[in-house]
């Protein structure tokens, strides 16, 4: 194995990991819940369009909503049963909004629809392979949930130098990737080779943290010269895309740029495992590993069906509702607090963290210590962003690259004044997006308004013109006479015609 030089990125934190809470027990296959809630949008891009009706019987793996456009994915039934409802349900979202979902009532049989795998994927065209990923509904299982085929497709348009499979699970508490690697290393390696074939990359790296020795040992015997396993230091947020690229290549992804512009494609290990299932067995993405951890009797990893309510997952690990518990989807650094435990697990949910009442401390004024800027892995100026977020200065926020913020939470973590900085940035991002949307809408409305005015003017002119024409052609009396004349002529013609017919008959 050739060795890759390890570089480092700016800032970051060494955190207590709390991984041993959940990574020693093997994962449990979660029993069927009494309902499955499948949001039509579990990825970045357009929501899917439903294809089923309420009351219809569906089978596991059946497509129940079709993708709308290129950056979109189909939704598959994750178990067999009847469609109970199609409507608005709470989804895992920091703003707590409701979104269109399909609800399935499982019949307990878990019957698969007819699925078929591919015997030899190496004979397949890379594009066909990518389409297979899309049809299997594979979106990034790591963070944002970017449809995998879009990332892959970019790969065929640009030469791909390097494919990185991201097994860096840098957030505390989360161990689902660790468990997945230990239990299914063959899936991951095979899936990695499939993605490698789909993007035709020259080099492939699986990046893993130093403190995951068992996972490393599971993977090593399966690797060949085609894939390199690189151990990276355990620093938060090492697993973030741009930070990991910096560590592995020493190069920074430019502001506003994408890794693909540098010839790099990155996927999560979970995506690799899903790719293996999709290609070799024809199984769409219907389940995933999630970590249930924190203040519960038996924290561990579960294999759950997508769409399982969060409460059902937590109850498998001995959760009972207590006042003062807060439930976080995701890790302690980047996760979002959920109010409602009926929200479903979606493709990007990797952790359910139950914590005792958060002791956040009261927010105090900024003392300008500058700690936040020291730990920011994107090298932003968190203090400045904080002031401009408070005053909603959108131009300044854009100038200071608010949208480059990866919301890793390092700044909030080190803030001695307990200022929830990331919270302010999220609000500001949302505000700016809304404002940009309304400005676009306003300019469209303005265009329509101007066209409307133009049309009114045109109609008025036309009306005036026709009135003028009428008055030029003569006075109303003359017009009457003109009509009379026309009627008379018509009548004369008819009489003449009748006469001719009569003559013909007589002859």
């Amino acid at each position: 194995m050739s060795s890759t030089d390890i570089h480092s990125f700016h800032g970051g934190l060494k955190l207590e990991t709390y991984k041993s809470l959940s990574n020693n027990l093997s994962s449990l296959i979660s029993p069927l819940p009494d309902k499955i809630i499948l949001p039509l949008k579990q990825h970045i891009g357009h929501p899917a369009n439903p294809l089923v009706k309420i009351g219809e019987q569906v089978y596991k793996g059946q497509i129940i909503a079709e993708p709308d456009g290129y950056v979109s994915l189909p939704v598959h039934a994750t178990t067999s049963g009847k469609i109970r409802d199609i409507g608005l349900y709470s989804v895992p979202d920091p703003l707590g909004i409701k979104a269109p979902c399909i609800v399935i009532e499982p019949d307990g049989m878990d019957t698969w629809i007819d699925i078929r795998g591919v015997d030899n994927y190496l004979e397949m065209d890379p594009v066909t392979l990518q389409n297979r990923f899309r049809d299997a509904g594979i979106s990034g299982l790591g963070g944002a949930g970017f449809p995998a085929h879009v990332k892959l497709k970019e790969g065929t348009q640009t030469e791909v130098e390097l494919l990185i499979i991201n097994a860096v699970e840098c957030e505390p508490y989360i161990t689902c990737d660790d468990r997945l690697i230990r239990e299914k290393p063959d899936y991951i390696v095979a899936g990695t080779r499939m993605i490698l074939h789909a993007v035709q990359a020259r080099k492939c790296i699986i990046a893993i943290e130093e403190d995951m020795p068992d996972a490393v040992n599971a993977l090593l015997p399966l690797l060949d010269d085609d894939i390199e396993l690189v151990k990276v230091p355990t620093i938060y947020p090492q697993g973030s895309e741009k930070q990991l690229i910096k560590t592995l290549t020493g190069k920074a992804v430019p502001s506003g740029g994408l890794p693909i512009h540098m010839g790099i494609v990155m996927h999560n290990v979970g995506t690799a495992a899903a790719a293996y299932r999709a290609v070799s067995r024809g199984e769409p993405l219907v389940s995933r590993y999630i970590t249930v951890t924190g203040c519960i009797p038996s924290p561990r990893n579960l294999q759950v069906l997508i769409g399982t309510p969060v409460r059902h997952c937590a109850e498998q690990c001995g959760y009972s509702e207590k006042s003062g518990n807060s439930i976080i989807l995701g890790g302690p650094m980047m996760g979002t607090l959920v109010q409602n435990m009926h929200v479903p697990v979606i493709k990007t949910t990797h952790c359910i963290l139950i914590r005792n009442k958060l002791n956040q401390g009261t927010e105090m004024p900024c003392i300008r210590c500058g700690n936040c800027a020291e730990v920011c892995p994107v090298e932003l100026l968190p203090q400045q962003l904080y002031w401009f977020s408070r005053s909603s200065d959108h131009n300044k926020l854009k100038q200071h690259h608010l949208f480059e913020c990866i919301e890793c939470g390092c700044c909030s973590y080190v803030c001695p004044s307990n200022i929830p900085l990331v919270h302010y940035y999220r609000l500001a991002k949302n505000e700016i997006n809304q404002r940009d949307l309304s400005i676009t809408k306003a300019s469209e409305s303005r265009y329509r308004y101007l066209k409307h005015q133009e049309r009114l003017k045109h109609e008025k002119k036309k009306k005036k013109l026709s009135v003028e024409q009428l008055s030029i052609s003569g006075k109303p009396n003359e017009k009457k006479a003109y009509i009379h004349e026309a009627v008379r002529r018509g009548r004369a013609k008819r009489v003449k015609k009748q006469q001719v017919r009569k003559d013909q008959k007589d002859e």
Partner: protein
Amino acid sequence: MMTGLLIILMLSISLAILAENSRIGSEILSLEKTDRINILLPQTQCGQCGFDGCEPYATAIAEGITAINQCPPGGNITSRELSRLTGSEYQALNPARQSEPLAKTALIDEELCIGCVKCISACPVDAIVGAPKQMHTVIPELCTGCELCIAPCPVDCIEMEPKSRIQI
């Protein structure tokens, strides 16, 4: 010695301010002042500001006749942006005008509609479709929530519904 230092300091400050201002305005500097103001307005043409539409209001602001906080659909955000653009002091939305509303959409009760076409000609953005003696309906994506269609309706079949957040 001190005066020299002071002069250099002041010069650098004024240069910094100049650079900052030119950067903000560079996208829209090429436009007339009225147009620059008009772009920030929501283009509902609702007339709640007391003028005949967005452009007349923009003209009035440009001429300094009226305050920058008279636009309810734009709310405090528009007011803040206008204050940045015009350099006048920020004022919260004038409470005498309507309070800052939620995004709304007109909805026609299709059972009551008699097809009189009056709302269609009232809509400033052509967001209502229909024909004489045929049922009319609002295209929600195009509706700006200006409420101008409500008054002309002879059977009171148009109501304003809050735009749900997923629709936006």
